[in-house]
């Protein structure tokens, strides 16, 4: 009996928090009531486990803009919440919201959680741009393992600007006809290359 009461109490709290969250954020008003309830539940669950909620709200709002149905919006938000959780497991609990979003993009591009964890290990600066570059390269057609290897090589020392420059160079080469994997390798060599030290 006590357990039942506790469950009911918990459910009540959840519902209250859902209503509270939905009531506090005017953006929820763009969702129809049914969608709002489901999306709010997912978002509050995410908040409970410490995941960033803003990307989830944005995903729901994107669905509204594009006229998606309730089921599709809820599924999209739920899928993103799951992916954010996977990204956080790989990147660590200290990962920022931007890093997690970039991590999701990389995961969806085909990178494995192991690669994300290796990036975290190798790069002590923010991972946002590194992960975005990884996702970009994969989206351009670079095989994911090649893209991951390239970013992992650059990750320890390259600045964000260097990574962006690297991505631009690869992108431009691909646009002009170079095979994606080859363009990446060449740019990687060019970036990492230094003239051989001279002997006296």
């Amino acid at each position, binding site marked *: 009996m006590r357990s039942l009461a506790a469950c009911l109490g918990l459910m009540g709290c959840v519902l209250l928090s859902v209503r509270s969250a939905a009531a506090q954020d005017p*953006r929820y008003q763009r969702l129809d009531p049914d969608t709002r309830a489901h999306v709010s539940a997912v978002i509050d669950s995410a908040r409970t486990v410490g995941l960033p909620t803003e*990307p989830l709200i*944005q*995903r729901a*709002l*994107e669905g*509204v*803009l*594009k006229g*998606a149905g309730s089921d*599709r919006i809820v599924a*999209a938000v739920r*899928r*993103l919440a799951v992916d954010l959780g996977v990204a956080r497991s790989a990147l660590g609990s200290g990962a920022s919201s*931007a890093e997690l*979003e*970039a991590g999701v*993009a990389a995961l*969806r591009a085909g990178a494995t959680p192991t690669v994300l964890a290796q990036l975290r290990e190798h790069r002590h600066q923010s991972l*946002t*741009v590194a*992960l*975005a*570059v990884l*996702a*970009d390269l994969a*989206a351009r057609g670079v095989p994911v393992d090649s893209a991951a*290897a390239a970013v*992992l*090589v650059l990750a*320890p*020392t390259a600045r964000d*600007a260097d*990574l*962006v420059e690297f991505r*631009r160079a690869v*992108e*431009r*080469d691909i*646009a*002009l*006809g*170079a*095979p994606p*994997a*080859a*363009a990446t*390798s*060449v740019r990687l*060599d*060019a970036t*990492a*290359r*230094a*003239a*051989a*030290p*001279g*002997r*006296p």
Partner: protein
Amino acid sequence: MQPRAPRHPVDPSPTNDTARRALAAVVLGVTCALMPVRASLAQTWATLDVGFSEIRYDGFLASTGAAITPGFDWSGRHAAIAARGTYLRFESGNRSLQGSFVGSLISARWHGWRAEAAADGGASSYADFARFWHAIGEVRVLRASDHRGLWFSASAGRTSFDKDLPSRPLATGSVAAWTRHRSLVLLLSASRAFVGDTQYSDIGVTARGQRGSWELESAVGARFLSRGAGRGVYGEAAVILPVDQHFAVVFSGGRYPTDPIRGSIAGRFISAAIRLRLRSATPEVPTLRLQPDAPHDSLSSSTLTVNRESSGNVRLTVRAPKARLVEIAGDFTEWQPILLARTSNETWGIVTAIARGVHQMNLRIDGGAWIAPRGTTRINGDYGDEVGTFVVP
């Protein structure tokens, strides 16, 4: 040829070291073998080393010198050029000048193989009494993938060690294989050379890699079956410590063998130098450029450019020829459509606050469908359409 007086106590050419030359060839080979490169892939590097060295040639006292070494490399679609020069002034007051040039042409891939024809020339002088030169033609066939490769090469030419003596013919043959794992390149090479009545064989292992921001390079080799070019084991290492994008500190040292082709004698050295290095600038165009034959309508040719303003805000510019109305929506607009202002006949724009990170967006032209414009990375969205992503670093 036995080492004799240090008639040419300076041999600054990076190309006179078999291992280093081979490593340079790896870079060239990888660069040229990997792809049908377009002209846009051409890269140019320039370096200038200024430093001091202590050199001890075999059988002679150590000497200290100050050196200035400019270098230039260019690699393009089917050709590459490398040039080096050195001005060195010894503590004795004697000076040395040296210059070398290597140019090569690389064929298109044929059944996984490429051919390369190279010309290698150089000249040097020490004080006012020693002059040397060499001229070599080399043919190489190579095969390479992303991570490994091999080649066979043969060369022939002439070299001169004294202005009063006739030049001597030379011929070499070599085979090498390399592999790359992440930032580490490992090269194994073996060669046999004939220079006049001198002949010798070299085998070597060269490694180049990175640890943190440090760049490391080392070579170990052995000379054997030698007549007139010495024998033994040699090795050298260098570490490059970047100070910033353009400057680095270079420490190197080791022992290297006699080079009968270019006129240097065996010795050991340590050196420290400041290196200025410049790389060809990459155009600031941050987006994919239009293909020349791309249809020129608004939908297919709309291009987004993202630039951060000095104020910290971000300028979004859309090139949309013939468009009458351009709207943008993304996670930075709460996915609410925002009308862009026309900034020229073909461009539309807005300056707005956008946080650093990865952002998603779509574009709508003249009230049509939401699209992912060029200049963004197009990904499959969760709503059955394409979404454009971009990074604000």
